């Protein structure tokens, strides 16, 4: 049975069979992961950081699988499909990320390893001796992660939709709930080891999917030159701020979105968690060199948006552009394979995100404010339950709230995440800024960022107009600038009011690589 063209949906038993096969394989792997590099999973650093034993190779797959999510694979080409070159800000974004990681994350890893810390909020508390600032960092991380998990489920939903499960009479809820329950169970039992092991299979499948797509589809469409020409024609017909090149009005927003997103990425709990699970600072540096391989893939995936235009894929919802293109270009068995790759691309990050949020919640919210007498085993058990709760919340949000809600919140989440930059990243180098000043700066950034985004109708960019010139600036960066200004100005005042600051539990040497490494 084939549904009318235009919806992008195709029901096919072969596709569904291939999809189900890989899904079952992954589930088995997820549960098996508990035995992989066996550790005592009743310890939080074993469950939530995989015992900090992942070498360069595993970390590469884990971080790659973590950062390039199903939502990215659907949303980036969707944006390119809808408006063109502007959606490519994801490329400079991923170029900027790795030099930043290379310089900052080894320092964070060293300090955290030395003191047994497992979250960025742990570090902030140890560095500044301020529970309040640590709480701000933890709350920001948990808040920003929830909608991100929800969006992974949205990505999953698109895949199910494209496979025509709706036509089977299966509601949209059932497959999502099944996928969620499987994910929740193996994350609960295996912790970070599950997504690490699954990431191998998922990333291999994703590379096969992308390489096949960017080789085969353009051949069918007459080469890349023809793809770009066809996209340009489609945009010309559409009008507005679209095209395969940027409009001059888009220069500033393109550049600041890329820069701001790059600063925010490694502040997210799922990125921090995957980074801290590495076995050493050299592993992180090596990954900063080799992770850009995924950025090439992301760029190629973004081009799928143009290919969808060139193939005359006409979908109302841009998120369906890639699934529809897959259905239109590949035989059912390979379409099933591609959909499985994207679906797993949702489950790996969703698992890591829920673990990252659980680590933060348990360590930095539950332990200091609810019960500070936790044994290690209790701490690990609470984190496992929180990871369930976080995923359940995301599932409810996807099932019962409009998708736009999750997308808007995720946008705000990026703006919020940037506001812990002064405390975490500057804190790796200097303690000159006082904790109370940083807290004030964080508050100013959070309020201003949210208010500006709200005022712009939940758009990420604020436009300054000088005469005829328009400068669109990413709101996250604007809020960060205010955050910095407040932190810097308030520091001398804080120092005057209270001469002694809380003790710093780190020493300069804690940030350096251990002598042997």
């Amino acid at each position, binding site marked *: 049975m084939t549904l009318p063209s235009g919806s992008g949906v195709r029901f096919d038993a072969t596709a569904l069979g291939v999809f189900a096969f890989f899904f079952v394989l992954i589930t088995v792997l997820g549960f098996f992961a508990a035995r992989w590099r066996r550790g005592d999973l009743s310890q939080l650093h074993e469950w939530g950081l995989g015992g900090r034993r992942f070498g360069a190779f595993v970390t590469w797959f884990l971080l790659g699988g973590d950062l390039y999510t199903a939502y990215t694979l659907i949303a980036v080409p969707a944006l390119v499909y809808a408006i063109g070159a502007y959606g*490519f800000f994801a490329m400079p974004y991923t170029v*900027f990320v790795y*030099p930043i990681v*290379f*310089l900052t994350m080894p320092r964070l890893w060293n300090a955290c390893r030395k003191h047994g810390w497992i979250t960025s909020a742990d570090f902030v508390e140890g560095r500044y001796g301020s529970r309040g600032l640590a709480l701000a960092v933890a709350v920001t991380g948990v808040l920003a992660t929830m909608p991100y998990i929800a969006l992974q489920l949205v990505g999953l939903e698109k895949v199910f939709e494209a496979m025509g499960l709706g036509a089977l009479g299966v509601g949209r809820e059932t497959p999502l709930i099944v996928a969620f329950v499987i994910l929740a169970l193996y994350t609960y039992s295996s912790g970070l080891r599950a997504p690490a092991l699954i990431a191998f299979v998922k990333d291999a499948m994703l590379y096969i999917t992308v390489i096949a797509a960017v080789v085969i589809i353009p051949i069918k469409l007459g*080469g890349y*030159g023809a793809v770009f020409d066809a996209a340009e024609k489609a945009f010309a017909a559409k009008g507005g701020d679209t095209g395969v090149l940027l409009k001059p009005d888009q*220069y500033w927003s393109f*550049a600041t979105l890329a820069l701001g997103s790059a600063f925010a990425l490694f502040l997210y709990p799922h990125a921090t968690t995957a980074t801290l699970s590495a076995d050493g600072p050299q592993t992180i540096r090596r990954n900063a*060199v080799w992770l850009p391989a995924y950025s090439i893939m992301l760029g190629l995936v973004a081009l799928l948006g143009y290919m969808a235009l060139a193939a005359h894929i006409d979908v109302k919802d841009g998120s369906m552009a890639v699934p529809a293109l897959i259905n239109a270009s590949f035989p059912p068995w390979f379409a099933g394979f591609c959909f499985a790759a994207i679906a797993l691309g949702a489950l790996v990050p969703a698992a890591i995100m829920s673990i990252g949020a659980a680590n933060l919640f348990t360590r930095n919210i539950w332990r200091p404010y609810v019960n500070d007498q936790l044994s290690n085993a209790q701490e690990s058990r609470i984190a496992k339950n929180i990871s369930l709760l976080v995923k359940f919340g995301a599932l409810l949000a996807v099932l019962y709230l409009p998708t736009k809600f999750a997308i808007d919140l995720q946008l705000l989440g990026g703006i919020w995440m940037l506001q812990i930059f002064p405390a975490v990243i500057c804190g790796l180098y200097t303690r000159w800024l006082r904790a109370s000043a940083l807290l004030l700066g964080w508050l100013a950034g959070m309020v201003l960022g949210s208010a500006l985004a709200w005022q712009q109708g939940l758009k990420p960019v604020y436009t300054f107009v000088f005469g005829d010139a328009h400068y669109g600036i990413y709101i996250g960066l604007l809020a960060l600038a205010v955050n910095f200004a407040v932190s810097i100005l308030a520091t001398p005042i804080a120092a005057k009011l209270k001469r002694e600051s809380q003790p710093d539990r780190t020493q300069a040497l804690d940030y350096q690589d251990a002598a042997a490494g």
Partner: protein
Amino acid sequence: MGRLRRFLPVLLLIPFIALLWVPFYNRTQPTLAGFPFFYVWQFAWVVLAALLTWVVHRGWRA
């Protein structure tokens, strides 16, 4: 050379300059294999930035 090595991370600023200077690469010509220059430049910098990071990684002694 020993002294200069401290400043090796400065190399990591180059990709930022190359990609934040948007008007420079927002053009169609020259194309490569059908790709407008806008895309060629961005893909090239993914590779070049990784290469620079590798150079810093090999040579940097703080």
